[in-house]
């Protein structure tokens, strides 16, 4: 059968999917810029305890005598408050970096947990099918028809304050997005022939679900994930603004902005403008990255 053996030439584009993905991603200057910005923001947040002059959560280090200093003034304690201080005398630079830590942690933690739960539920629904699926998906639909802000608002009101509670509220209000995405993609994938092939090859259902279908749902999941993390950060800020978010003494960006809100008309713009800019920078860069990911990962948009 030698003459069947055609060692055909290889198509020109012989990069791995990841390399191709990377190449396409790095094509957009905006997206790369956003990614770099995001990277800087994350690194700054992570390094906050080492690069800030003050630990804004340690009451012994915060002095109310420093309250509302404009940017560049020197604090009682000696260092310069480059971004000014807030109404309790917190150095805003320190507070923003620490706040970023909380905001990012809340956003990412709720995103990741919601992703896990949502993925599991969505996949499970697609996997079992039938009544159970209908039941699950109706539930998901109903939750989706409810605005996340309202769900989170109610929950935080019920649960009380605290990082854990707000994460819980965000997870509850967001898991359904993931579940729906995963299930929708999984349903499409389930009807593809490679799944039938896997069934035919006697592979277990679980293996088909997790090793074959799930990896193919990742694209949309990542996109939904970035958007949801960004919206979780915003939502947390909104809840804090409404007074049901995080505690005053361990401010996230949202709390900082909300606190600064009171000073807006008094000319002390910095108390809420700087945290606002930090939030904006973070959320916009996440969204830009996510947006571009969507373009790259969406085969329909490909040329």
């Amino acid at each position: 059968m030698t003459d069947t053996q055609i060692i055909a030439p290889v198509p020109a584009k012989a990069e791995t999917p990841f390399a191709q993905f990377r190449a396409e991603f790095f094509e957009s200057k905006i997206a790369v810029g956003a990614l770099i910005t995001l990277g800087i923001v994350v690194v700054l947040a992570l390094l906050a305890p080492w690069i800030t002059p003050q630990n804004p959560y340690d009451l012994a280090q915060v002095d109310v005598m420093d309250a509302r200093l404009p940017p560049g003034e020197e604090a009682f304690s000696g260092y310069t408050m480059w971004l000014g201080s807030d109404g309790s005398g917190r150095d805003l630079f320190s507070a923003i970096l620490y706040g970023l830590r909380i905001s990012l942690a809340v956003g990412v933690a709720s995103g990741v947990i919601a992703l896990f739960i949502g993925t599991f539920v969505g996949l499970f629904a697609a996997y079992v099918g039938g009544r159970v699926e209908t039941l699950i998906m109706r539930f998901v639909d109903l939750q989706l028809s409810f605005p996340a802000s309202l769900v989170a608002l109610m929950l935080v009101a019920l649960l009380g304050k605290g990082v854990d509670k707000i994460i819980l509220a965000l997870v509850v209000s967001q898991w359904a997005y993931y579940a729906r995405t995963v299930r929708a993609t999984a349903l499409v994938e389930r009807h593809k022939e490679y799944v039938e092939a896997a069934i035919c090859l006697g592979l277990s259902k679980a293996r088909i679900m997790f090793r074959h279908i799930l990896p193919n749902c990742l694209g949309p999941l990542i996109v939904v994930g970035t958007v949801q993390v960004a919206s979780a950060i915003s939502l947390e800020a909104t809840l804090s603004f409404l007074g049901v978010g995080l505690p005053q003494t361990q401010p996230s960006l949202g709390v900082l902005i909300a606190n600064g809100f009171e000073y807006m008309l008094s000319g002390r713009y910095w108390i809420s403008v700087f945290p606002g800019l930090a939030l904006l920078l973070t959320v916009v860069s996440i969204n830009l990255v996510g947006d571009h990911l969507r373009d790259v990962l969406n085969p329909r948009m490909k040329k």
Partner: protein
Amino acid sequence: MTEILKVTGLCTHFFTRAGVVKAVDGVDISLNRGEVLGLVGESGSGKSITGFSIMNLIDAPGRMTGGRISFKGRDLSQLSETAWQDLRGNRIAMIFQDPMMTLNPVLRIDVQMIEAIQAHEKVSRTTARERARDTLGMVGIPAPDERLKAYPHQLSGGMRQRVAIAIAFLNKPDLIIADEPTTALDVTIQSQIIHEAQKLTRQTGTAMIWISHDLAVVAGIADQISVMYAGRIVEHGPTDYVIDNPRHPYTYGLLGSVPSANKRGARLFQIDGMAPNMLALPRGCAFGPRCDRAVDVCAAAPGMSQSCTQKFRCHNPVPEAVKVAK
């Protein structure tokens, strides 16, 4: 015989970020009234782009970079966009490959037909509607009045394709470009469609370019055949000559690889390798690397040779005496 269409040296290139795709690279076509030209070739060889180029429907990043198209003696290259709109769907019509996708899913059939008439003629809705209904009847659609009120998804694939054909025929065009109109359909439906198309061209004298990769279909309806490979026409001639006595090795291989009753159970002739990468075409003859007749000169691009019967683009053509095993 009046010449309806004359295309010379048509080049349509796509300027993508990965490089220039020479989708159509020097195609010549000449077509007379009532004639059917079969355009065959493998996927990606530029058949559809040729069709779209004639319709001036190439979108960015593609551009017609060279060549002349004259239609009924009129040079189309300087035509304004509005003049094109007059021409399209009126004198030159096109039928697409996938009947599921060509009709707008959210508009009723009558809307889609009437607008095609009213775009070119000032007629009342009722007149236009009547004409639409009659044309539907012509292409063999039962109960055309009801069908007019239907949405595309309420029709079967074959039915939709017949609607598309009816739309192409609405304004009795001089030329129809049928881009693989039956590929997605069953044999029985395919023959219905070919039947209607044949009937209509015969009745109206409309010329037709029938694009297909199925030689058997083309053999059944075309007067002439052009074989495309990698953006160029590699062989052209009257159907009988091309099918019975192909000169280009690609045509030869293609014909050889079609199973038939006589070859039952035997090994089929096969063209090895795969379709060329349009971004990086081999130097010289694009078919060279897959060609079992390749010789040294093939490193240079072959020009069009003319025999008594047909034209072909090959340095080392299949001798006239060799016929395809049938």
